[in-house]
């Protein structure tokens, strides 16, 4: 999984039916210092994020498994909201 910052949301009416009812967010991958890594991605939001949130997300095949009863056609899925990062003291 990786860290990411939420930049906004995306709405799409015409889409694959398997994406119906899912929220989409604009996600900028970042490192733990909040520095951007690569380009923005469009992610399926399973937790209800807001602009500015720091989240963690999963990519690849695992992004298709957030629901037990069905698979979704996603390659980037947000799986958690970061409350805070406690840095290493060592």
């Amino acid at each position: 999984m990786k860290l990411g910052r939420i930049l906004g949301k995306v709405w799409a009416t015409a889409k694959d039916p398997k994406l119906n009812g899912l929220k989409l967010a604009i996600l900028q991958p970042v490192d733990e210092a909040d520095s951007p890594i690569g380009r923005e991605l469009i992610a399926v939001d399973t937790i209800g994020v807001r602009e500015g949130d720091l989240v963690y997300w999963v990519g690849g095949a695992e992004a298709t498994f957030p629901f037990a009863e069905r698979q979704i056609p996603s390659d980037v899925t947000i799986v958690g909201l970061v409350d805070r990062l406690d840095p290493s003291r060592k």
Partner: protein
Amino acid sequence: MMLGKVTATLVSTVKHQTYAGRKILVVRPMDPDGTLRPGSVVAVDTVGAGEGDVVLVASEGRAAMEILGYDRRVPLRSVIVGIVDSIQSGSKEQA
């Protein structure tokens, strides 16, 4: 598997149920000589790793499913599977 160093503990209340009750750590990829590389990986700990530890991270969904004991695929791929005691690379050895 990837070699890395634990740089932070991630505290998270709102999350997918797969992550409930699990310790989540931030790991920086590391070369065998100890040089930290750019990018951070968020990984679930299964071996009692802590901040500052050098660890092994497996990033593969089916491996994660097997290790965490799920009988179906879950939206989780990065798992800390070992704490490194020492590394020997070429003629150099470091604790």
